[in-house]
């Protein structure tokens, strides 16, 4: 008969059990478990006529992939070969039990053997264990790298850097888009320090936050197929920082430590179809980017709160000494701030401080001015004296201040001509009344 094992135990008995069985019969039960399960069978009662090598009555248990076992006798009896408490687990999904009795001419009642009572059930089949037992005999159904059993089945997986193929058992190297985003870590060729696989097209990308720079340090051993005369003809490791190639390496000489000055590094590793080199491994670390110490271009520029060190996102403010103004190119700046960028440069160049120029003093109607400092120089602290065209005009003065005080204008730090009393307003030259140069004179008496 065909029996379907389930997870709950079921009984299987010899015909007529527990009544004594008849001689001269043969019964076969094929017990089948569902996919992913095996059949477990345990005898609870076993009472067959014992015989030498169980050549008489017997129960034979056979499963694919294993030798059949034959049992007879009674449980606990030294005669025959009873199965005892032994569990029979099929290596595959099925298990066959054959109950065979020898024909006998004797009185039937002389043989009072009950036969057997067995419990069978479906139990999870550990395919992984069975694979390892099977060795390389069935490579197509064996996980190439890792096998994971679960109730009712199993699945395969691959070592890091390899990808499970469509057959769900085999693994192939896959390293075309490896991404590393931790602040530090290790990268290595596949299988390192074992020889790397052939035909690799690996791309290892390291991406860390802006403002960090990546340092690479290769470890020993470093071994990439090389040639004495030709540079890296077979396999090669290319390194790019910010998209720029910073080196191509092969051979057995470990590359120097690399300061990439970048937060984005790509390593491309190409191998040909052959080779037996052990590959490479590196340790990458990060460091925050620093900008060069700001330096003034002239003695009039002041950097406020100068720091010992400037790193990404730090900034400094530049101002000028009194009487000077910030100049960037030809542009006058009202303020200046430079920010340290993620590439370690300042986002704008240091400005200069140029002395304030008040420009040509305003012309005084009916008057003029003369320099009391260097003639024609209109820069900070330059001084002029306005005067009126006497005797026809006279400077309007306030009570208590002299004409010379009223007429003195200084180029201020704000870049304007200013008088202490009048501010930016220039003086006024008022007409002088009643003072003819050539008044009428009476000479005749």
């Amino acid at each position, binding site marked *: 008969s065909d029996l379907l094992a389930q997870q709950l135990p079921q009984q299987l008995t010899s015909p007529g059990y527990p009544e004594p069985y008849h001689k001269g019969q043969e019964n076969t039960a094929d017990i089948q478990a569902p996919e992913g399960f095996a059949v477990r069978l345990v005898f609870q009662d076993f009472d067959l006529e014992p015989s030498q090598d169980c050549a008489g009555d017997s129960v034979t248990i056979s499963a694919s992939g294993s030798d059949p076992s034959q049992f007879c006798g009674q449980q606990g009896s030294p005669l025959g070969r009873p199965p005892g408490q032994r569990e029979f687990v099929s290596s595959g999904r099925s298990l066959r039990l054959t109950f065979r009795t020898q024909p006998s001419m004797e009185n039937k009642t002389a043989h009072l053997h009950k036969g057997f009572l067995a419990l069978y059930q479906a139990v999870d089949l550990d395919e992984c264990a069975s694979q390892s037992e099977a060795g390389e005999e069935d490579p197509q159904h064996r996980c190439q790298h890792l096998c994971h059993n679960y109730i009712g089945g199993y699945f395969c997986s691959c070592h890091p850097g390899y990808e499970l193929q469509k057959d769900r058992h085999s693994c192939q190297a896959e390293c075309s888009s490896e991404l590393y985003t931790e602040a530090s870590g290790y990268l290595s060729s596949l299988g390192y320090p074992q020889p790397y696989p052939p035909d690799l097209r690996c791309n290892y990308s390291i991406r860390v936050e802006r403002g960090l720079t990546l340092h690479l340090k290769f470890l020993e051993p470093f071994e990439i197929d090389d040639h004495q005369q030709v540079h890296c003809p077979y396999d090669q490791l290319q390194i790019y920082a910010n998209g720029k190639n910073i080196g191509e390496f092969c051979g057995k000489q470990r590359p120097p430590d690399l300061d990439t000055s970048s937060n984005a590094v790509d390593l491309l590793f190409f191998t040909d179809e052959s080779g037996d080199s052990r590959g490479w491994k590196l340790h990458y670390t990060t460091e925050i980017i620093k900008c060069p110490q700001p330096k003034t271009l002239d003695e009039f520029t002041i950097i406020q709160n100068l720091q010992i060190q400037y790193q990404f996102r730090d900034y400094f403010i530049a101002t000028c000494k009194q009487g000077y103004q910030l100049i960037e190119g030809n542009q006058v700046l009202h303020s200046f701030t430079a920010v340290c960028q993620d590439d370690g440069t300042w986002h704008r160049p240091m400005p200069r401080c140029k002395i304030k120029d008040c420009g040509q003093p305003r012309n005084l109607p009916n008057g003029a001015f003369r320099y009391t400092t260097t003639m024609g120089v209109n820069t900070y602290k330059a001084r002029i004296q306005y005067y009126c065209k006497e005797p*026809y005009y006279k400077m309007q003065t306030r009570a208590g201040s002299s004409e010379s005080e009223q007429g003195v204008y200084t180029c201020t730090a704000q870049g304007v001509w200013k008088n202490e009393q009048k501010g930016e307003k220039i003086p006024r030259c008022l007409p002088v009344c009643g003072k003819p140069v050539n008044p009428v004179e009476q000479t005749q008496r």
Partner: protein
Amino acid sequence: IIGGAKAKMGNFPWQAFTNIHGRGGGALLGDRWILTAAHTLYPKQHNEQSNASLDVFLGHTNVEEIMKLANHPIRRVSVHPDYRQDESNNFEGDIALLELENSVTLGPNLLPICLPDNETYYDLGLMGYVSGFGVMEEKIAHDLKYVRLPVANRQTCETWLRRKNRMDVFSQNMFCAGDPSLKQDACQGDSGGVFAVRDQNTDRWVATGIVSWGIGCSRGYGFYTKVINYVDWIKKEMEEE
């Protein structure tokens, strides 16, 4: 000017020559104002609305030369509100200001005159100078003339006027100068010019009067607008300049 002398360049640098309804005079105040008599702008017995051009010249003593120095355009005319054009015998408020469009550049031949600040400038007998391009005897002047006249006694002038059976107004805003015994006076064409007094203390020339009216010329006293009474109005018009 009757009985006067020819002025030299720079003697009266404030003197303006006007040609509005005929010749007239004026005096420079500051560098863009001309003080003159209202009746040079609105003559008595000349009722029609004045459309005459306002020609003002400065800076010379010769009529032809002064006119070559170019006319000074007028921005604004301000006539004293007391002036009555229609009252031929009343020269009350005979004072006006002309604001020039552009300031003039002062120099030896073009200088302003000062305004009076006290009554001593009207003391009896105080000598003042009157200048102008008006008629001299029966001739028109080509050059600036001047005459030196004393401030006359107010009561004497009043009596002199009434004795001539004249009903002309001689108000407190006028003063008289000259002497019937002198053959010296201002005359037609001198109106608007100033009676200038030299202040000995400050050595400044002060415009105390404006040539206003008279009975004929050189036959008695001349009557002048008393400038000190109008200083507040003048300053207000000139915006305290």
